[in-house]
């Protein structure tokens, strides 16, 4: 052991996290069935209590001390919607009124009443109102003024500014285009040069950074990819290297990291898994599946059988493993659920380890008392609750060809009791709510 070079700080931290995570997995694996069942269950009642409490404490006056109140509304209300629930009329009306007061007279929403309109809080407000649904919520958004606000935020370099005199980055681009797309106010002026700007932020790693010159980052990668899909210029990105980068951000802990060589964090369950699923839906489903299993498919389609065979040696199915199994051996414990063997029946083979990811979120990020967190030993918060649940939903639907195809029981760790509503991958709002909103805003136009 003395021979080993001294480890770096990041390596030490990584080691500590792995220790925690594998400790948890090992505890899970050695527990009895009833305990295991409890551990992977989404504690719906506790989760709802936590969320509803948070929402009630925002009101009744929706005090505006912070610069991101609309975000808190979105995190909570979207999380509730993912769990298949709605808020009561009082809370709904309060939220609509409050967001109405955040809306500036020249369009856009600020972080609280009287604050400057800001693209990120506008995105949160619009997504919240879409999630609440209904005529009152939808019509509270001033579409014409919003269009003016978005045009004011557009910079000559093709990107968007967060707010008047604010910073330009990929988040701003995404939030602007997501809003414009839902409200059906996209036009040439908004999309002009935008693809060029996003393109200049893709790094040689494959992922997308926040601004030109920055290193690739999970959140910005989601924003950049979603923007490019929304403006129909996704082909301009180097999708192969993007796929390569994003898939490799899932580490031995089975959760995702946000950047090269950073620690795992529950919120990247959404930021990284959503690009994976978006990319895999853009690529042909057949090609993503490991080739070894093609002869076992029960639902395999047409030309698959004849295509395979030449040029490929035929590995046994059992060889199909992931890096997580290697690490299991190394760390001397490990999860024994050989979930890969259940992939025989194939729809879309996820490009990431979906059940492994769900395992990480449920065992390491869920707080039994309600809420989700970054990782073990960290406190819960609404931000992580929102993006852990959103990511879980994405992971559960990773095998489906589209949002309307329900997952099979085996796709969902913990079974159908854990099923979450599917989300629209480009906007991260629950699909049904999105459909209702789109119908409304296209009627409006």
């Amino acid at each position, binding site marked *: 052991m003395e021979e080993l070079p001294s480890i770096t700080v990041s390596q030490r931290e990584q080691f500590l996290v792995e220790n925690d995570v594998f400790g948890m997995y090992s505890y899970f694996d050695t527990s009895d069935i009833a305990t295991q069942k409890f551990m992977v269950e989404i504690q719906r009642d506790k989760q709802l209590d936590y969320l509803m409490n948070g929402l009630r404490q925002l009101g009744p006056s929706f*005090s*505006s*001390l912070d*610069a*991101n109140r609309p*975000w*808190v509304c979105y995190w909570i209300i979207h999380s509730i919607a993912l769990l298949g629930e709605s808020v009561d009329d009082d809370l709904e009306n309060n939220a609509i009124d409050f967001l109405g007061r955040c809306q500036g007279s020249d369009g856009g929403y600020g*972080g609280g009443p*009287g*604050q*400057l309109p800001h693209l*990120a*809080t506008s*995105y949160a407000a619009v997504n919240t109102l879409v999630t609440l649904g209904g005529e009152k919520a939808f019509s509270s958004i001033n579409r014409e003024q919003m269009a003016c606000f978005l045009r004011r935020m557009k910079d000559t370099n093709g990107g968007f500014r*967060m*707010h*008047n005199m*604010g910073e330009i980055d990929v*988040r701003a681009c995404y939030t602007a285009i997501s809003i414009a*797309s839902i409200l*059906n106010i996209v036009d040439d002026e908004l999309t002009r040069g935008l693809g060029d700007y996003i393109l200049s932020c893709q*790094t040689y*790693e494959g992922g997308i950074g*926040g601004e030109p010159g920055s*290193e690739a980052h999970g*959140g*910005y990668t989601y924003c950049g990819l979603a923007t490019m899909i*929304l*403006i*129909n210029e996704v082909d301009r990105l180097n999708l192969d290297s993007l796929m390569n980068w994003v*898939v*490799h951000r899932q580490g031995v802990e089975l959760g995702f*990291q*946000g*950047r*090269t060589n950073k620690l795992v*964090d529950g919120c*990247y369950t959404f930021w990284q898994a959503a690009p994976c699923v978006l990319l895999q839906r853009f*690529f*042909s*489903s057949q090609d*993503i599946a*490991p*080739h070894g299993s093609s002869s076992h498919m029960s639902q395999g389609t047409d*030309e698959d059988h004849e295509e395979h065979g*030449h*040029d*490929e*040696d035929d590995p046994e199915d059992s060889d199909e493993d*992931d890096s997580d199994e290697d690490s299991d051996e190394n760390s001397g414990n490990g999860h024994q659920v050989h979930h890969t063997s259940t992939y025989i029946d194939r729809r*879309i083979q996820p*490009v*990431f*380890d979906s059940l492994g990811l769900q395992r990480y979120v449920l065992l390491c990020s869920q707080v039994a008392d309600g809420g989700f967190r970054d990782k073990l030993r960290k*406190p819960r918060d*609404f*931000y*992580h609750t929102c993006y852990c649940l959103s990511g879980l939903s994405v992971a559960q639907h990773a095998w489906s*060809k589209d949002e309307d195809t329900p997952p099979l029981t085996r796709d969902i760790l913990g079974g159908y009791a854990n099923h979450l509503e599917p989300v629209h991958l*480009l906007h991260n709002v629950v699909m049904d709510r999105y459909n209702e909103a789109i119908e409304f805003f296209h009627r409006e136009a």
Partner: protein
Amino acid sequence: MKPDRNKFSIEEPLSLSLDRSRDDFQPLSSTSERKMHGRPRKAYKPEEEAASASKAAKLRSLQTQFMSIHHHKIYTKEAIDLSRKLLEINPEAYTAWNYRKLAVEDTLSREESNQDLVKSILDEELKVVESALRQNFKSYGAWHHRKWVLSKGHSSVGNELRLLDKFQSLDSRNFHAWNYRRFAVELTNRSKQDELKYTEDMISKDFSNYSAWHNRSVLLSSLLARKAEGFTPNEKIPEEYKLVHDAIFTDEDDQSGWFYHLWLLDQTVNVETPLLTSSWPSHGSCINLSGGDGCLNDSSSSKLTTFCSDLGSFPLILYFDQPVSGVSSSTVAVDSELRGNEDLVWEPVSNKNSRVSCVWVARLNYMSSEPCFPKEYKVKVRIGNSPGIVSSRGCNFSTPYEFVFTAHVHDTVREDSQEVIVSWTDGFDIWDAQSKDLNFLVNLDQQMGLKWRQEAIEEEIELFRALSDSKIGKLTLARLLMAKAMISENGVKGVHYEEILELYSDLMVLDSSHYRYYKDEHSVALLHKVTSSTESLSRYLFQYRDINNSICLRLNNLSLSRIASVEKLLFVQMLDLSHNELHSTEGLEAMQLISCLNLSHNRIRSFSALDSLRHLKQLRVLDVSHNNIGEHSVDTTRYLCSSPLSNSEWTEDEVGRQMTSLVTKYWDAYFVLRDLDLKQLDIAGNVIAGDEFSSFVPQVVPKLVWLDGQKLRS
């Protein structure tokens, strides 16, 4: 009601906001949320609760007062102080940052000449930012405000670096700080060499710090690009390899070094200045030109060089090693006796409407209205005599280059319709060409065989053969071997294509979740191998009896998932890519001579994936049968923000107006097919195929003679 302790507690210990392991992607920043909900859940003492409540009340009142002064545009000293108090507690209050910008502008407009005052005002701003950053290191608003102050020409690089050092030693991965660092260095013209030294220090402290590696690549790119002293690639890149080896070999599982290594390899292989990779016709070649569809009955050896076109012109193709702009009649001189080519129009061949492309084409007329006698013409092409050809990275095509070819123009009878159906199934004979017939095809001018590049890669290969047990080791070795193949003087010698193919095959098995990526790389390597020598290429060339023994390149049944090496295949007129695993035809747009193309039994899912074919002006026969066209796994109408038809260009043409509903239904087919001048199309065996689609096609492609083996008109 008791105030909620999780919600409105204000103060935040510095240690928490500088928590280095935290790297999430909160919309404003992480600590505001943390302030509200992130407190470790432990019992609170009553006095803590009381303190917290009083702070909440204080902040609430501050906030109210601030909103009032902001809305009334009051810029007195007291008012400005108030905004400072607010920001020190809550750096996320971006409205207050904007207020301060307005306040500063207000004072500056009145007191511009008072240098001392200006300085003290801007100093104050920097102080506010600094204390806000202490409160929350990840505040977008605070960093942005500081950039704004610096843009006013204030502060010194020394100050900024001292501040950054303080923060970066607490969190070496904070991307706000790194972004700001790049900004400040750029603005103050701090020497990039010094910055490079800084990244070296950061790396030697912690080689896992990928942010430092990344910044190193940004700095080196810039230093190499402007040829700073001591920064020639042949000196610097080998040194960098040594540096990164330390990291890679210390811990093979650490990702940072691998990514930097990938970047280095990229720098080793790619040359900054654009080069001409190939052309058609190629230097020293002799081509036969004739009109009409029926080609010359000539000896087989000239088949490859015979070009027939009903357009009466042939394409002159230039293929560059990287996308360039500025190819025009002023940067490329074409001297020939062929008439009517005084002002050639050069067009980039690219799928987007950009003026940048690897491939540029001009069409030279050879059929004139006057009776044309068989004649021989010399054509001389000179590229880059005058500047103007520039790569997308801004480098000039600097080495003028010239090539000469001969064109024989023959007079032939024109035939207007295609009576022969191309069946693809039989009628192919092995082509027993002499390799001398092929020599000119693959004899390309490779001008980049610089010695240091080969040596550097050779060294890396030796080193990584030892590490090739791991996935990343295998992948790196495969990439290195490919790099070697790309920069070798003469294609085959010393290149181990079999080894590359084997490595990728191994990886497909070992790492099935990245199967597709390896598959594509495997295809690229395979096509490199096929085109690496005349011997190898001639094995794939056949004669097709049904059309005058035309030469057909058959790359069928190779399990290809991607097209590559097209720069060596510009001569191909008949191409069989059937029974592969292609998803798109991207790359084929360069092969401007193609008239017959077989893509049957591939994995093409939509007409959009055939978009590149729109550039093939000679294409007459297309087989896309037995693909997955029409099987959208993504519902495009759902994902596009507006219907692709909303640009309404289709309503302006005749067909679009007459068949609105069919065009709407088959819009992607419509956009591709209407630009193709096809005589034969095979579409059977796709989801989209059917009676309705079969009735739609002939209206969009009026010259079509054969559809799925059926003759449409006599």
